């Protein structure tokens, strides 16, 4: 049995990587921040932020998990996990995982509701973006992208069913969080009713959450890799005492530790994607292992990156904070590392 990614999966990854490399550099991520100095530095035109989503639609990424009959590619977790990693690497300032990996396949399998301008065709075509607050017990606060999404997936507190709310039904109230590019919002209302229910089937609800946690874990891998790349680039270039600071053993040790954590988390994320794609009974356990390890790895890589950069890493003009803050935000959503470790423990009966 071959456990490597297929040529198609790697081809899709390369296509998304080279597209985002050109269309979503740091200036574009920064342009998604409010123009109040908190994300200071070179900013692209605001239109460049929307263009990233449009290009993703052009090349067919947004329909990757939508059935072929609905205009998508009908692919599964193993096909999009590498794409989520690339979206993380570029810190794409859009609800990529929420829309592509969670909402699209959930709406497709639940079959409703597709009206109200929030249809599958809209997702595939790039006109619809969906935010999500599906972590069990989510209080509806600081939901990433909810301030500018076309809809928000939420749990009904009483029934546990998933509903797709329009911004007015959710009572969206914009809030600032550590990552200014994700336009988070508190959901002050949440009017869940029969007209906006997506599914009450526990299997679909659980699957949707696991896909979100898996997508977040993959994005965290990408973010960690980006922070490590930035740091390696910096310590090779920055000279002190006549030599690059990266030649000092203490700096090398930090970076080696960072790489080890990143490389340990990666197979856990790929394993979780496999378990999800084949419908393994261990899916929840494997996804939790992936999210816990990826969250911890990204936090550790971020801390090492910040330390190895020295003072410049703390400035908002330098790019590191764009990726560091996204990693912090993602580590705290779709279940924290502690929450997921607890779920692994329960799955193991301890």
């Amino acid at each position, binding site marked *: 049995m071959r456990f490597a990614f297929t*040529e198609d999966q790697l081809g899709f990854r390369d*296509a998304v990587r080279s597209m985002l490399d050109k269309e979503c550099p740091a200036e574009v991520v920064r342009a998604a921040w409010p123009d109040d100095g908190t994300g200071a530095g070179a900013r692209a035109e605001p239109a460049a932020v929307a263009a990233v989503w449009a290009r993703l639609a*052009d*090349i*067919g*990424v947004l329909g990757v998990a939508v059935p072929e009959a609905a205009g998508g*590619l009908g692919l599964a977790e193993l096909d999009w996990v590498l794409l989520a990693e690339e979206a993380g690497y570029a810190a794409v300032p859009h609800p990529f995982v929420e829309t592509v990996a969670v909402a699209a396949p959930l709406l497709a399998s639940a079959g409703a509701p597709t009206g109200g301008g929030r249809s599958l065709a809209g997702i595939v075509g790039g006109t619809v973006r969906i935010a999500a607050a599906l972590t069990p017990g989510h209080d509806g606060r600081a939901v990433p992208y909810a301030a500018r999404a076309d809809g928000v997936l939420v749990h009904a507190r009483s029934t546990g069913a998933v509903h797709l709310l329009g911004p007015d039904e959710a009572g969206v109230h914009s809030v600032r969080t550590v990552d200014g590019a994700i336009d988070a919002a508190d959901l002050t209302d949440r009017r869940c009713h029969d007209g906006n229910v997506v599914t009450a089937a526990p299997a679909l609800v659980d699957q949707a959450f696991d896909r979100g946690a898996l997508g977040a874990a993959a994005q965290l891998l990408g973010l960690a890799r980006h922070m490590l790349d930035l740091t390696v680039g910096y310590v090779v270039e920055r000279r002190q005492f006549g030599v690059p600071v990266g030649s000092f053993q203490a700096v090398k040790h930090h970076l080696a530790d960072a790489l080890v954590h990143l490389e340990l988390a990666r197979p856990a994320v790929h394993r979780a994607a496999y378990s999800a794609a084949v419908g393994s009974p261990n899916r929840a356990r494997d996804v939790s292992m992936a999210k816990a390890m990826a969250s911890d790895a990204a936090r550790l890589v971020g801390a090492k990156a910040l330390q190895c950069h020295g003072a410049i890493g703390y400035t908002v003009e330098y790019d590191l904070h764009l990726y560091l803050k996204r990693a912090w935000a993602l580590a705290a959503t779709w279940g924290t590392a502690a929450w997921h470790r607890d779920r692994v423990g329960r799955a193991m009966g301890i």
Partner: protein
Amino acid sequence: MNVVVCVKQIPDPADPGALEEDHTLKRDGKLILDESDSYGVEMALQLADAAGGGDVTLVSMAPNNETSGLRTALAMGAAKAVLVSDDALSGAGALDTAKVLAAAIKRVEGADLILAATESSDGYTGTVPEQIAAVLDLPSVTFAKHVEVADGTVKVQRQTESGFDECEAPLPALVSVTAGVVEPRYPSFKGIMAAKSKPVDQVTVADLGLDPSAVGWAGAGQEIVDVSPAPERQAGEVIEDEGDAHQKIVEFLDGLKVL
């Protein structure tokens, strides 16, 4: 209208490889489509589309039957490819390359227009397109920043230092295009999947009717005797302002022809 595009598959510039003992670039790993060729591919797709149909065919020369870069261009929408791969081509210079590509182009039936980039991103000789035109005895226009085809004629805006020239040539013709002639599309997922089943005609030097002993090192009229790294960038010039600094800055910029 049928368009042939000459494309080069090169080592990834983000991960430049080492040199072989004979001072040529190592090309034994995965090769990618030279970004400068993606403009020609896009131009060809747009011209074929504007003409209401026709095929875009790629022509390439690469070691080890490498097709990774060709697949990228096929994923963009090209219909098929001719790939010349032969150990005899190791050490080939610009003229060898032009002769081989010209022979490969002859295998493509009914080519109305041949496009190439102005130069490759790994070799930079910038001479191959004109040499191909000479070998095929076709008119050629270089440095195209805009290309149109109408009534059996190709009309080109040819980039110059001070602006552009309006040129025309009867078809068939060869045109080399600059980066920026059009914005290349990104390969779509459906294009990537379709590219796998598009035909790639893999041929050797002998298949093209050429003499293997007349190309590559065997037939080379040149030899690489030494390679040295590019000089490190020198520190800039410091101008002390004694009231005339602005003039010196203007002179400097004028020398760069940016004013």
